[in-house]
């Protein structure tokens, strides 16, 4: 296998630190991520209820 000298010598750049900007409504990034996942779970639960409900 041909192997170039540039290979795997360059480390993956590390991500930039979070911006100092405020996160609207939720305040911090972990909170907004948690809110997205919670919203997803609640949506799925409501959709399951909607599908199964006896109208």
């Amino acid at each position, binding site marked *: 296998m041909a192997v*170039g000298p540039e290979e795997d010598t360059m480390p*993956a750049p590390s991500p*930039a630190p979070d911006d100092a900007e405020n996160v609207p409504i939720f305040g911090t990034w972990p909170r907004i991520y948690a809110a997205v996942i919670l919203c997803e779970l609640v949506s799925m639960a409501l959709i399951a209820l909607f599908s199964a409900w006896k109208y």
Partner: protein
Amino acid sequence: MSTLDWAVLIVYLVGIIAFGLWAGRGNVKIDDFFLAGRQMRWWAVGLSVMATQISAITFIGTTGQAYNDGMRFLVVYFGLPIAMVILCLTLVPFFYRAGVFTAYEYLEKRFDGRTRTLTSLLFLCSRGLSVGVTLYAPSLVLSVILGWSEPATILLMGGSTIVYVMYGGNKSVIWTDVAQMAIIWFGIFLCFGVALAQIPDPIRFPDALALAQVTGRLRVMDTSPSLTTPYTLWSGVIAGTFLMLSYFGCDQSQVQRYLSGSSLAQSRLSLLFNAFLKVPMQFLILLTGVLVFVFYHFHTPPLLWNRVELAKLERLAPPAALAEVRARFEAAQEGRRVAAQTYARTRAEADAESYRQANVSVDQARRQAIKLLEETRPPEAAPSRLVAWLMRVLGIKAPAYSDTNYIFPTYILTYLPRGLAGLVIAVIFAAAMSTLSGEFNSLATATMVDFYKRFVRVGGTDAHDLFVSRVLTAFWGAFACLIALQAGRLGSAIEVVNRFGSYFYGSILGVFGLAVLTRRASATGAFWGLLAGMATVWLVATFTSVHFLWYNVVGAVTVFAVGMILTSLRPRAREGA
């Protein structure tokens, strides 16, 4: 369409072009043209991301799909919020910090130039061809439904988009997307409200839902573990997440939208905005399709939704055979109406079964009409040798007759009040143009940044680069129009294009996974891993019945595994060299 409908459509078209030109003024450098000067706020970028994703066929196709098959398709979007969080934590910060124009440019910084060239070329090939289909599909539907000339519809839709994207670049794309998304949201609520209001007495909303439920159209959560069953909960959550990661993380038409954010936080917020809104939005679109399904229990639908094919059937079929099919369809339709009313009144299990059977009778009568059409119409021209060979290799069958995309536009034009029909046609235009604008812009960006500025003219002036960028935008717009104009003749070749794209979407995600999830992965590992991923997806697609949603998982996992294995073998390779 009435004069008022025409007036609404013309006001939309003139207004959106004028707004696009106004919003896109002041471009000096390609930073302005391709990334809107990196000054956009999260809500504008978020709406643009949403508008780019929702194409006209998504709007009219998913309502038709809900009509025919129910709301199962919703599970595909279950992966979207998860994917957005993952992207905010992984790829978005890397892209932002690297200060890149294209996602593929980042791969050169991380790996090497050939990985960048290959991935960007794959994007240009697949997106360049599929943008023609994005333009052709709604143009075909509108030309059939409205009786317009197909080339005129294509040129109107494509040409008006080219005008403002060529002049204003990404600023025009984002701001027109904001306006178009507002129109689309309004249209969605309007269609839902009208469909709800038009269900006749004494059927109420819960009755409509009960009827849809009996036919299985409200069923969303299929927990089957099968990989071959389409749209299960697991394929939605797992494979849907990979699909959304590929689309929002590795497809330049989306990456370019959020790279225009004024900061990393603004870019992230634009994606999270979509994470909150996308599932409810698709739910509403699909529910509208379900309501249209119930609506047509009490209003006679056409024998075939595609007017052109219906006219062919009426012209070519033996009158006696057609009369028999029509009589059977009308009797089945009347039987379903009575059965639906009875079940809505009693909610008895016996009546539910009668209603179910009545639905089956309507479906059978429609299938008989389609069979008669296929028996009587002249056969389509056989595909060329190359296309036939590609179809064999890629395991593609000739597409069966489907008029799903015609259901919702037929409903709009037949039953929506004057003015509102024109508005919903404008919504279909908005959905198509918002996708096209993002795609023209991103294709021009990848061509300019990943190829022209690397291989043709490295140190061009701002004025020169801006000029070439506009020429490239016009080129890709014209190319899309050309493909769309030829699409009717290309026939099965369109299927080849669509399938081709699905082979490497997940594989490119695997390359980005290697780039950001591990520091060890080498350029050789990424390059050969990408090829191995595409080959594996081809094998799975050709020799198994695994549902296409899983291809992205197969591609991404293969690339990551092969890339890591090749990377770990490298020291030994060097020793042996």
